[in-house]
């Protein structure tokens, strides 16, 4: 395949870095309204980490109430009477807590970290471009996510409080204020997500265009680092799924405000229509939240093992298969919703089949570390934890995919355990791995490895002590989103386990402060980062840390795949993608990814 055919005309017009010319952008264009993908990536990091803190704080309050139901929360006295009189959380506030915890974590923390931060950090550098295809659109994408986040946050202080119908916002509860006791908050929830939808769409078109059109000569599809493959497929999912969420949210907003009845049965509307729309977006969303994490973990695992990724084509195929199957499984959230049980059967089949590409990924990660030379740097520790935890989250998913078993565990803590094994054990550990890995490249300073390892050890241990027992709570029959389980006699024996979970949840929350401290401290005091601290292969590692505005001084050339670690006969155990083959004598190694097939034009 000739690479020139793939290049759009604007590739030749890229503004490459010019070392002879100082970067004279004014402060505001450089750090605030910047069009530089690296700055936007950093901005997404700070924004999402802020909302990660917010979501975490909400989780702490949830766990306080479940661990010590009805006891005044320490420090809860600062909350207004409408939330926690005397520090005792009110049931209506509790409903807002579970709703907003899920909303913030999914839409404003995990998703922008994986897509906004990694997408911006990695895509132009990994494909060898000077910036995104549409830099101004990229800036707008970030600057529309910010108001969306603050609208969501502001809903806590409006009359009636924040949305309280769950992050899934099932109508009629979410549509009729008399049912939920929340009116403005529930509307702001819709407005915020509609704005955030625009932000995601602007990001997605940018990512797709950049990856398709702006790959440097020699960067063939099968030489792309796996984070780029996963972000590419994720961007396609976003482009197709987000409009459905935004459309449904607009319909819900109309039901709330101008008297339509899309989801209200009084005038012939259908409550289940919302669930179909929401989950038709929502299940692809699940993969939006895990595919980039898989890509990042793959990159770090190959690096930490000093070995080529095992089965690169299978890894790419599995990403594509998961994304495709992700469109035909949404009904597994609705097995007990009143949907025709025969539909349940077919959704069970499609859902179970997703276990196959997921298993392929896990086995290929195992194959990658097998016979490796494993270096336990902080990113690698987190990436290995990602694999171990994703396995648990994946296997527990088989239980609820089985329609009869789901009858019992649906809407119980088993689901809560499962989704946290995937989103925390999976996505968040990969996010930690990626931040430890790329922070040096974008801030020019290493994160402290000592603090990093302390943070990892505490997080890994506490995380499992928090979320593993939740499987047992769910099997004991404990429902989700209940303010006080002790209302039920059969749940009273579970109180000690709930208290146990809460103790370690608080510990887990506190240990995250190590991570935030590490970031703040290292920004100013961290060891200066060299060009390539992890001896890694992709294009960004041959640039300064941080890379200059415009990234490369000229169009880079790519000579091989991204995972040429421990190539026999070389002195080094890594091989930069942009390093010309010495003397033109290319020894194409056998098997796997195409390597060194000629010199690009």
């Amino acid at each position, binding site marked *: 395949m000739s690479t020139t055919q793939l290049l759009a005309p604007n590739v030749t017009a890229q503004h490459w870095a010019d070392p002879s010319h100082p970067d004279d952008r004014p402060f505001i264009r450089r750090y605030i309204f910047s069009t530089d993908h690296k700055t936007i990536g950093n901005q997404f990091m700070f924004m999402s980490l802020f909302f990660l803190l917010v979501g975490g704080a909400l989780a702490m309050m949830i766990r306080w109430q479940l661990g010590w139901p009805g006891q005044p929360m320490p420090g809860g006295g600062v909350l207004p009477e409408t939330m926690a009189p005397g520090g005792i959380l009110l049931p209506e506030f509790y409903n807002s807590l579970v709703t907003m915890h899920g909303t913030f974590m999914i839409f404003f923390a995990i998703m922008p970290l994986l897509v906004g931060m990694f997408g911006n950090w990695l895509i132009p550098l990994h494909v060898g471009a000077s910036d995104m295809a549409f830099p101004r659109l990229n800036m707008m994408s970030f600057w529309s996510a910010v108001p969306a986040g603050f609208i969501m946050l502001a809903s806590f202080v409006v009359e009636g409080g924040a949305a309280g119908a769950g992050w899934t916002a099932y109508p009629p*509860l979410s549509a009729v204020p008399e*049912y939920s006791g929340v009116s403005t908050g529930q509307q702001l929830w819709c407005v915020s997500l509609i704005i955030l939808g625009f932000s995601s769409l602007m990001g997605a078109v940018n990512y797709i265009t950049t990856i398709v059109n702006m790959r440097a000569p020699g960067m063939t599809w099968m030489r792309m680092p796996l984070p780029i493959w996963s972000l590419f497929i994720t961007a396609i999912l976003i482009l197709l799924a987000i409009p459905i969420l935004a459309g449904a949210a607009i319909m819900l907003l109309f039901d709330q405000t101008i008297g339509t009845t899309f989801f209200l049965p009084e005038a012939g509307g259908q409550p289940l229509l919302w669930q179909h729309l929401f989950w038709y977006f929502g299940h692809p969303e699940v993969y939006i939240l895990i595919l980039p994490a898989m890509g990042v973990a793959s990159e770090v695992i190959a690096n930490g093992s000093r070995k080529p990724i095992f*089965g690169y084509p299978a890894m790419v195929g599995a990403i594509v298969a998961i994304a495709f199957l992700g469109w035909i499984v949404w009904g597994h959230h609705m097995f007990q919703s009143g949907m025709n049980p025969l539909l349940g059967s077919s959704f069970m089949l499609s859902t179970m089949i997703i276990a196959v590409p997921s298993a392929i990924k896990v086995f290929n990660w195992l194959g990658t570390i097998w016979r490796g030379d494993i270096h336990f740097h902080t990113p690698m520790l987190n990436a290995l934890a990602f694999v171990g935890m994703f396995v648990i989250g994946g*296997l527990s998913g088989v239980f609820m995919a089985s329609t009869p078993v789901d009858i019992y565990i649906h809407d119980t803590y088993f689901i809560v355990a499962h989704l946290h094994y995937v989103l925390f054990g999976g996505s968040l550990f990969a996010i930690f791995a990626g931040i430890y890995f790329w922070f040096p490249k974008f801030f020019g300073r290493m994160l402290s490895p000592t603090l990093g390892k302390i943070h990892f050890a505490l997080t890994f241990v506490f995380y499992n002590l928090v979320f593993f027992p939740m499987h047992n709570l769910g099997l004991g029959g404990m429902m989700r989103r209940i303010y006080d389980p002790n209302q039920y*006699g059969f749940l009273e024996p579970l109180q000690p386990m709930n208290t146990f979970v809460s103790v370690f949840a608080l510990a887990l929350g506190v240990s995250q402060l190590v991570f935030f401290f590490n970031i703040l401290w290292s920004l100013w005091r961290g060891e200066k980062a060299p060009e390539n601290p992890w001896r890694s292969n992709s294009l960004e590692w041959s640039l300064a840390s941080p890379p200059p505005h415009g990234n490369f001084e000229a169009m880079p050339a790519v000579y091989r795949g991204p995972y040429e670690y421990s190539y026999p006969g070389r002195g080094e155990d890594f091989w930069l993608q942009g390093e010309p083959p010495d003397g033109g004598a290319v020894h194409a190694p056998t098997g796997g990814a195409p390597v060194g097939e000629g010199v690009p034009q």
Partner: protein
Amino acid sequence: MPEPASTFGAGIDSIYYIILWITGAIFVLVETALIVFIIRYRHREGRVAAYSHGNKKAEIVWTVIPFILVLFIVYASNDIWLEVKRADQGGAAPADALPLRVVAKQFEWNVTYPGPDGELDTADDFVKRNQLHVPIGRAVRIDLGSEDVIHSFFLPDFRVKQDAVPGMTIPVWFEATRTGEFPLACAELCGLGHYRMRASLTVHEAADFDLWQSQEIAASGSPTGASEIDTERANEAEISEGEESA
């Protein structure tokens, strides 16, 4: 999980245990491999990683085996699912089932009993709030509805869970295998009082159920609106009426 108290409870549990064994075995296998590899291949002075891009045979093996396993799980699950949902009967409960109507609303369960005539929407129906009473050994058909928001009808001991959706009447059925008192919980977030939207299910011996029913009718007055003094006679009338129509 509590000991099952319905006819299909054990079947649902059996598929749970099948999945537990399969996933448990994979869990042990994969996590052990992960830990063994991490220890065995940790960096040591002079250690060189193998240069390998993969292995086609291995890919095929670990694609085909999970595929067969999940197909088996789907097959086994679907059998029980169709039985529980009585899909071959179009979802209809067994013919001799006791018909009940349960209507959820914030934050209570209203149960309509058919009365002695065994039919809903007749004059001898009576309604109990948050009390579900059923006989043992006889299927119960519940027409589940909701007046306001979505609730979920959850009988943990019976392995029954079904959302109650406003605007829909959804059939639910089960047959109790144990007498006693069991919790009925709301499993779908339905507002402020969701956490306390509980009720109790009492399973009676067949004769006790009839006794309970006649006591209820007696205590609540004649469903046809006769005065309290006439209750007993009215009851007898109802019963005989019921027998005639049967």
